[in-house]
């Protein structure tokens, strides 16, 4: 109970921090502007308004979410060490693992609210151009985008626990990019002659997160909805990966000297 209370208190404080961070508000405003642009572009592409709005809106939602996940995520732990705000936190009966989980969940909550606001923006834009059915059906893809953002956040927090913010941001972004070409890595591994290269690319394929499980934007633009089992499997994959990454983060952070 105590551990859960600590996680809840730290998570809600992390959420409050993000809410009071003006950059976050700017991104939401910017997303709404993007939606406005989509409407304008939709008018240029006759008959394709709804599809264009979904494509641009959801892609921008992912992109802005990734920026938030990376830039806020890499600072979650390192900023607290740098600013020495952790000194008073750890003088309280708080375990380091509880702190990591609390900070992570706080940022996930922020992303959830962010994604929900952006999703509402896209849905309203779709209703505006007469794409009523799409305004509902896109939410499956939005849920998958949130799963992906939660996974990227976990990776960012992992790097943040032992590396500088700049390097953490770079590494997380690289993993985001590689994770989207994961299947290409597997194909590359299968077609390589060298056993060592096959082993290496195979290992990268299995070790790094595979974000293709969460790619549904283009399907959503055609009105398709992910099945319940598809969503459940994606959720299971994300949860398992996040659990491992956060556990490793907590292990690393447990013995870190806070100079």
């Amino acid at each position, binding site marked *: 109970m105590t551990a859960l209370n600590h996680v809840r208190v730290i998570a809600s*404080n992390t959420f409050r921090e993000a809410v009071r961070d003006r950059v976050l508000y700017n991104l939401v405003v910017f997303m709404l502007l993007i939606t406005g642009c989509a409407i304008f572009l939709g008018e240029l592409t006759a008959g394709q308004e709804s599809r264009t709005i979904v494509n641009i809106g959801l892609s921008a939602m992912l992109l802005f979410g990734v920026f938030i996940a990376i830039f806020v995520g890499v600072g979650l732990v390192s900023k607290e060490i740098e600013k020495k705000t952790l*000194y008073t936190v*750890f*003088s*309280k009966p*708080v375990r380091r693992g509880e702190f990591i989980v609390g900070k992570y969940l706080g940022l996930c909550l922020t992303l959830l609210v962010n994604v929900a606001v952006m999703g509402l923006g896209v849905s309203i834009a779709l209703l505006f151009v007469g794409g009523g059915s799409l305004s509902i059906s896109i939410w499956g893809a939005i849920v998958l985008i949130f799963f992906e953002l939660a996974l990227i956040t976990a990776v960012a927090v992992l790097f943040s626990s032992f590396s500088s913010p700049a390097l953490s941001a770079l590494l997380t972004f690289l993993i985001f990019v590689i994770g989207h070409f994961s299947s290409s890595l597997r194909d590359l591994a299968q077609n390589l002659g060298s056993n060592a290269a096959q082993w290496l690319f195979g290992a990268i394929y299995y070790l790094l997160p595979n974000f293709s499980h969460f790619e549904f934007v283009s399907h959503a633009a055609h009105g398709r909805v992910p099945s319940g089992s598809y969503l459940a499997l994606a959720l299971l994959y994300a949860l398992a990966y996040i659990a491992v990454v956060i556990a490793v983060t907590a292990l690393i952070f447990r*013995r870190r*000297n*806070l100079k």
Partner: protein
Amino acid sequence: MDTIIEIKGLTKDYEKGFWKKKKIRALDDLSLQVEGGQIFGFLGGNGAGKTTTLKLLMSLIFPTEGSAKILGAEIGDPAMHQKIGYCPESPYFYDYLKADELMVYFGRLFGMDKGSAEKRSAELLTRVGLEKKDWKRQLRKFSKGMLQRVGLAQSLINDPEIVFMDEPMSGLDPIGRRQVRELIAELREEGKTVFMSSHILTDIEALCDNVAILRKGRLVEEGNLAELLRSTAQDSGFEVSVGGIESSVFKEAIKGKIASEINVKPGGFSLNVANEQDVEAVLASLNKLGGRLIGVNPVRQSLEELFVREET
């Protein structure tokens, strides 16, 4: 009183350099026992290892060697932290929070419900002298002295048995210093133990029952403050103040009998002598020369002199 802080051979090495890592010993084999219900002063110059010791005790960093117990529990035990408070040097807080929000946040980390945390927060912010209008201001707008007050208040949110304070007077104006001194003295009256490090020796001298002095990471002096000062005062002898004669005449008269520097002062002069025999010799010379004795005082060594002696 029971021993509530027990430090055994605590040692901390830091590594410096990127490729060729060089070890720097910040704390060297510190062993210390602190009994409850007192104000314990932890002294030392810059880089002596005071903050390192406090960080080790708070488990913010981990010892290279040695161990420590607080209230019978190992320092890494989070449950023990339920009973202690910590005010770091120049405290850093979430600057997006308001003073009362920070207090409630910390209170809730101790398992307090929101209402109790708010009530306790109001009591403590009043106690440290933070004006009510400042409670609802974001900490980023606070001065150093105001942050120090919040730091002290948050260290008491859980009504701790022991409070660790790293330079608690840092950044405070004279009125603030007096208020904090009174607060620390009150904590002792309430039966709490205060373990404080400070550069301000007058505060240590005014407040502390026992002290430990660190130098370059090593413990060089430890014990009851009054006894430490008394034991060194015996070596310091007496100051004899004299008037009614020229210092040069007196100097000539005691030449070869008493080895002492003569300090000329308004209305006479004074000299420091080692023992009572020397005082009698000075009095005999005075009688012979027709001088006047103004006073004889035992030289009481100040903490500052003791501290400087240990530092050199």
